[in-house]
């Protein structure tokens, strides 16, 4: 059969099904393969809080969205071009995200009475008129999978777990992707159980062949490689990148890494990842709670380790008191907060960026801490590494904010050369002559780091206010005033040691859109779209949130209007208004999901129209 191939610039596909359907794995493979062929891409895994919710339920739907293309890709896509739905619930939950005219590949075998009812359908949408606006491909995926495995001696459970590879094979055919990366992965992954290698391989190929042989599909698509910087790449999630950033900082500072952490969604993977690399002398300590997590890390840091702690919102709240101690002790410490939906337990598996004010202001008394935020999965590596640099150079705890979206999302990572990574080796104090634990370096305002084991430097530090030289307890009123102010000044001074803020677009104009953290992609994409329409709008994205870059006020004053989109009720916008007295306004949608570029574009339109 002869079919046309249509060339596309970019495309968004969603895999959705039950928590048990392996959608995250499927999406992950599609991602790797697409990266492999040189597409740029962004992904959005979205899964329920329940571990393995009962089959067919709406709340049990798990999804993985991939936006890939021959052009620069900044977001996982506001809407999908194609949607693979493994059951009615997956269709129900996601249909609103499908573009007018988009494709649905549905596993008809699960569109049975029970599942339709569970999903709240009164009739089968594949059979009634309701999906008229879409291109529907009804494929009996379960049955076809079964057929492919007929002669193998596999349990029904195992056969069922294979059907996602059928869907994957089919989409590989549709979008002209090679099967090799996945075939290799299967071989490696199931090396110990050859029958699984055989089964998964067969089913993947069966899916591919199904596309090739049936007449259902009249067109295939081709998406050319993007123009990406030359070099070696790998796929990495935000949480992996954070973990690797810590490992790299440990290697380049020659300090042993100590992670004191307590599991919490969506931060746990950092702990899991670091637990693997014991040969880097990394010690991961799964503490009894978040307080012990950070306290143990502070203890390790006192001992000369690179101390780190990782958590999400509720855990961050629990660490508050101990962060104040770290401020007082002036010891290096890296605190990673992978933000999630709140308040309280909130929406544990959903994204949000509402811990900024907590990070900047949320401690008793004046307890200044530098705050940095990562903008994408790979940026988690750079941001964490930079946090380590600041922590070690300025003897201070540093907060790194990431979020559920970039932590779980993966993207191609241009592997850095080890030699290009800044050397972070700190200078331990070893000279007993005139040693004063709180004598500061006149430039960095940093106190010396003298670790146990150093003869002659025995000294005592603690959380009470301390004399500005000896570190001994001091209740002197003027000393306290001095210390409160110098601690703040030390952090403020870091502004002289970070890059200036930059605008993407023009340095002045009608509207500046300011963003931070994981909304980078959506905002950048929205601004680019509007600029390409000729609007006077630029984008500024901030990694450094405390202190802010020195030139920030100046840039803000170059624009007539300032818009700050955030997945919160306006947090950065508060800081900017306070600090620079600019009438910045917020765009705030708190749905537990990445911002949609389209919404931002509409707001840009509106503001520019209003003038």
């Amino acid at each position: 059969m002869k079919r046309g191939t249509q060339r596309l610039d970019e495309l968004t596909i969603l895999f959705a099904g039950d928590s048990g359907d392996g959608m995250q794995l499927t999406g992950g493979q599609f991602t790797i393969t697409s990266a492999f062929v040189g597409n740029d891409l962004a992904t959005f895994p979205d899964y329920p809080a329940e571990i393995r919710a009962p089959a067919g339920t709406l709340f049990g739907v798990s999804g993985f969205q991939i936006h890939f293309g021959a052009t620069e890709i900044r977001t996982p896509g506001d809407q999908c071009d194609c949607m693979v739905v493994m059951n009615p619930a997956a269709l129900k939950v996601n249909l609103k995200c499908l573009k007018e005219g988009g494709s649905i590949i549905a596993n008809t075998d699960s569109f049975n009475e029970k599942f339709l009812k569970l999903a709240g359908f009164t009739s089968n949408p594949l059979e009634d008129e309701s999906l008229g606006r879409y291109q529907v491909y009804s494929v009996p995926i379960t049955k076809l999978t079964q057929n492919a495995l007929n002669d193998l001696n596999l349990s029904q459970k195992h056969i069922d777990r294979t059907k996602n590879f059928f869907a994957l094979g089919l989409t590989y055919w549709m979008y002209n992707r090679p099967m090799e990366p996945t075939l290799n992965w299967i071989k490696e992954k199931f090396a110990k159980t050859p029958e699984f290698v055989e089964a998964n391989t067969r089913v993947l190929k069966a899916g591919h062949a199904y596309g090739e042989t049936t007449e259902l599909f009249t067109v295939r698509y081709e998406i050319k490689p993007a123009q990406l910087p030359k070099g070696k790449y790998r796929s990495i999630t935000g949480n992996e990148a954070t973990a690797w950033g810590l490992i790299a900082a440990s290697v380049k500072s020659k300090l042993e890494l100590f992670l004191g952490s307590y599991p919490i969604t969506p931060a746990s993977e950092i702990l899991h990842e670091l637990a693997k690399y014991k040969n880097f002398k990394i010690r991961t300590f799964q503490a009894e709670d978040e307080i012990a997590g950070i306290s143990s890390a502070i203890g390790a840091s006192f001992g000369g380790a690179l101390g780190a702690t990782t958590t999400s919102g509720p855990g961050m709240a629990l660490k508050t008191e101990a962060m104040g101690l770290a401020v007082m002790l002036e010891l290096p410490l890296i605190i990673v907060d992978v933000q999630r939906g709140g308040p309280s337990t909130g929406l544990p598996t959903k994204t949000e960026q509402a811990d900024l004010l907590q990070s900047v202001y949320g401690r008793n008394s004046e307890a200044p801490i530098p705050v940095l935020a990562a903008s994408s999965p790979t940026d988690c590596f750079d941001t964490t590494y930079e946090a380590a640099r600041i922590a070690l150079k300025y003897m201070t705890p540093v907060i790194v904010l990431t979020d559920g979206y970039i932590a779980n999302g993966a993207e191609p990572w241009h592997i850095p050369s080890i030699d290009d990574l800044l050397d972070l080796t700190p200078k331990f104090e070893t000279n007993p002559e005139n040693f004063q634990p709180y004598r500061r370096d006149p430039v960095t305002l940093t106190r010396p780091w003298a670790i146990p084991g150093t003869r002659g430097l025995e000294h005592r530090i603690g959380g009470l206010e301390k004399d500005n030289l000896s570190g001994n307890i001091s209740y002197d009123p003027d000393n306290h005033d001095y210390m409160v102010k110098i601690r703040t000044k030390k952090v403020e001074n870091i502004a002289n040691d970070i890059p200036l803020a930059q605008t993407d677009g023009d340095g002045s104009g009608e509207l500046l859109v300011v963003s931070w953290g994981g909304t980078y992609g959506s905002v950048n994409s929205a601004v680019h779209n509007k600029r390409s329409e000729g609007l006077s709008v630029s984008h500024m994205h901030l990694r450094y949130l405390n202190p802010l870059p020195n030139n920030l006020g100046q840039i803000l004053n170059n624009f007539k209007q300032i818009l700050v989109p955030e997945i919160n009720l306006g947090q950065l916008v508060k800081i900017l208004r306070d600090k620079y007295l600019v009438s910045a306004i917020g765009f705030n949608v708190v749905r537990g999901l990445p911002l949609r570029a389209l919404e931002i574009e509409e707001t840009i339109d509106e503001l520019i129209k209003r003038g």
Partner: protein
Amino acid sequence: MNTPIVPTQKYTTKDFQTDQDVRWCPGCGDYSILAQTQRVFPELGIPKEKIVFVSGIGCSSRFPYYMNTYGFHGIHGRAAAIATGLKLSRPDLSVWVTTGDGDGMSIGGNHFIHACRRNIGIKILLFNNQIYGLTKGQFSPTSVEGQITKSTPYGNIDHPFNPLLLALGTEATFVARTLDRDPKNMQYVIKRAAEHNGTAFVEIYQNCNVFNDGAFELWTEKGTKDDNVVVLENGLPMIFGKNKDKGVRLNGFSPDVVSLTDGKYSVNDLIIHNEKDPMLAFIIAGMSNNPALPRPIGIVHAIEKPTYESLIQKQIDTLTAKQGEGNLEKLFNHGQTWEIK
């Protein structure tokens, strides 16, 4: 602030003293604990710079300021957690926690039980004065029932912890008790704690002469002490009394006091203390709940179990042997990668 460098073998008590004003109330039992510690530390053979005292908040937690070693005055209740991180990342150090009955058993209760169960090589000295000293006299989790305190004007209704039982319930490997007023026993117990491999827990009865004066009188004062305290000695029968004329015998699972002079019982009927027997430890620890029994002091329980830090080291060594030392280049490039040309 720094004393000249002295070779280990020549340390004296003075070497462990700091130039800091000691800020406890005159007459406080903490002074004696400090004195005994400073007296016994020269004998440990550990270089000063390898010793760290970690504390939380409380009168007892001021202790690190007065020891001329490394010191860390933490936040309320977290000393065990801080010390855990320090010890895990620096197993070469001798890490001591000084804490109070509030700091260690109330707000810090969780870190305490977890440190004990993990068998991390830290030494926990709990200054038990059965009161919150620093905050001026509220009851603590070890205050006795009925105790009148600032926060219990009509008497305490909390059933107190028996710290020894609590520690044993976590399967701690070293559990001991000593008294602020018994320098000899305290020095012995501290030394044994120092030598123990794993978490060592020492409860120290400490008089707070301002807010809970005399709480331990019966067991510390000359007139009553001998007849009310039994000093535990491993392998020896539990004899006590001014004239060594009484003993502790087991009646079923219940210990009771017998006279060694009325002809009914002899030394052979008494409990032979065995530091290694976990059930005997529970029985001895439980004696404190019965006012008719003498209060046991000394080493209640001491066994060997692998320490947490040694197990972590083993995993590091094993993996390093298998995969070689960590290599960043290798890490970045392992698994699936691709080239954009």
